[in-house]
């Protein structure tokens, strides 16, 4: 009798062991913590979209829970198929390095792929910025996410050049800026088709009626929209730069000052094209000195920068 009882008990327990079930899982409450655990299980099974849903629900319950925010960001990146290695792999490609393409542009980066990364960077900014600003409680603090946030902000700032209408999506409605490096290292790079960009936003019949010598005032709405794009890029790159400088000081192989100078150039590139703002945006001692006509009016090697808000054929 006793061996039979023992055998029955062992068989029942073995069956439960094999299934790996928890007999009390029905008592699980719908808390942020339990949702996070469910999301982590989905992450381990590479079910990234399901994981995203669970972490989003957890954030709904506890908006300042850094654990939920961190894992939501993690799931978003992995759902998109991006990670540091795959991105680095693309950027480290010899052909890409040797070329003069701006990061995340060019043939290797079709608009839909750039937009995927742009959307992910927005999620990362939204999730990680509160942790960086120490507005959250939970498992993760600012030193756990600094590098991720810096990368997200840096990428978003650069990608924002492709979201010219600032609608949050990189698509066919955006102007495809031609960003080109300038041989003179002190100049960084420039928007070499700024003139065409303004033309694309103006009404064609009106432009055709002009002679090359005539100038017309650029629509104030266009000026405002473009300056807003410049300011947004400037702000987000400023954040990326601040984080990188704070974490890179002497810790990593890359010279933080060199990184700073490169990000500064990216900011300056956008900033020097700010239109009709009464400021010497390119630091040449003159204010709003150019007409947007595709010509280097002031002979400083750049075309159409720091313009006065007029356009000409």
């Amino acid at each position, binding site marked *: 009798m*006793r*061996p039979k*009882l*023992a055998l029955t*008990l062992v068989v029942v*327990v073995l069956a*439960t*062991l094999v299934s*790996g079930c*928890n*007999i*009390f*899982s029905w*008592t*699980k409450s719908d*808390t942020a*913590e*339990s949702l996070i*655990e*469910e999301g*982590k*299980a989905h*992450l*381990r099974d590479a079910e990234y979209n399901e994981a995203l849903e669970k972490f989003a629900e957890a954030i709904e319950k506890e908006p300042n829970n850094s654990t939920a925010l961190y894992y939501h*960001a*993690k799931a978003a*990146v*992995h759902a998109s198929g991006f*990670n*540091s*290695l795959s*991105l*680095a792999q693309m*950027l*480290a490609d010899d052909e*890409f*390095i040797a070329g003069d393409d*701006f*990061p995340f542009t060019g043939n290797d980066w079709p608009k839909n792929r750039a937009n995927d990364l742009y959307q992910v960077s927005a999620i*990362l900014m939204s999730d*990680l910025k509160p942790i960086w600003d120490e507005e959250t409680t939970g498992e*993760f603090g600012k*030193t756990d*996410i600094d*590098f*991720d946030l810096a*990368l997200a902000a*840096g*990428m978003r700032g*650069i990608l924002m050049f492709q979201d010219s209408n600032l609608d949050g999506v990189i698509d066919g409605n955006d102007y495809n800026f031609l960003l080109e*490096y300038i041989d003179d290292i002190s100049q960084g790079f420039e928007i070499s088709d700024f003139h065409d960009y303004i033309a694309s936003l103006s009404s064609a019949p009106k432009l055709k009626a002009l002679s090359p010598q005539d100038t017309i005032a650029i629509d104030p709405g266009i000026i405002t929209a473009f300056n807003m794009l410049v300011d947004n890029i400037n702000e987000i790159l400023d954040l990326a730069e601040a984080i990188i400088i704070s974490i890179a000081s002497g810790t*990593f*192989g*890359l010279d933080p000052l*060199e*990184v700073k*100078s*490169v*990000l500064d*150039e990216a900011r300056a590139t956008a900033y020097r094209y700010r239109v009709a703002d009464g400021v010497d945006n390119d630091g040449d001692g003159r204010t709003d000195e150019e007409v947007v006509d595709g010509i280097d009016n002031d002979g400083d090697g750049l075309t159409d920068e720091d313009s006065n808000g007029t356009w000409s054929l």
Partner: protein
Amino acid sequence: MRNLKLTTVFAALLIMAATMIAPTTAEAGTQRYNALDVRSAGMGGAGVTIHRGFSAMLYNPATLAYQEKLRVDVFDFQINVDRDLGGMMKFYDDNETLFDAYNDTTLAAQQKLLDGLSEWDDSWLGIGSYGHLGLRYMNFAAGYYGDVKIEFKTDKGIFDPRVHEYGRADFVFAFGGAFELPESVTSSLLPNPLHAGAVLKIVERYELRELRLSASEVNIDDAYDTLVSKSDWGFGMDLGFKYDLKPDKVTLGMRIQDLVADIGEDRPPVIVNIGASMRTRKGVLLAADFNDVFFHDGENLFNKLHFGAEMGLSKVFTVRAGVGQGYPSIGLGVFLGVVEIDGAMFGTERSENPGGDGEFSYAGRLRLGF
């Protein structure tokens, strides 16, 4: 051509993200091993009222009151291993060359390694060992025991993959005793004797605070080197009570863990566990514990329940089964006179909710004594 382009900067930053070493503020996962006894492991973790040997000092010093004969444990060693650790170690062995040369290998190879680790992503896996030398006589026991645990987890991270390591080793001299409370204290309330016990522990602790490492830095030798680099001395005291509701049949017990404790910077909280056991007419021992009755850690009620049964099949073989934190457990004991062998498979819950993040482990023990 520029010396440093944005493209190059981003590529360098992303590659560094995969190889950097940095501290993290995230807390190490668990204290799961806590000198878990293999016998209790097979019984779902229940143990407040059932231990009679040296291990009574780990579960409830009041149960030392049951001792009558001299017992000397000259060798008692057990090891606990998480079940998933086997699969992960096999993956590591299969790719050892690539891991050793992680920083020098291609990004594609690094990506393949990270993808292969997804199954264990963000899961703490560990190995623990426990051993003691000790004796008990009458209502007293004394001995020296070591409790070592090493845990690690891989985390694919957002952009930067990480490996976390955590380790702790306690080497403890323990002295415990139990006595019957005088009738003047208990007779008016309790018809049967009430026993109280205490164990004083002098602890030397070596600790590896949680580290976040690049994949290429993972090396168990390094972990131990770091482990030894930090140590603290301290002490702790547990109290225990047991009451025989029906002598030799039904026992109630309580353990107050770390009533007084001070180990380096660690001030462990006071944890109170209660338990009951009953021996049936057929000789089956049933036991149940409710741990942390004051909900110090905020866990779900059902995470605190441990219950199990033990039945002797013969003078040599004993089988055990139970449920701990909702997960089933089984165990087997082999008694060969001076040699005892025990094994168990059991589950533990690492989240606050049942079924949230469970892990099954194996435990085995060899004991020599007389």
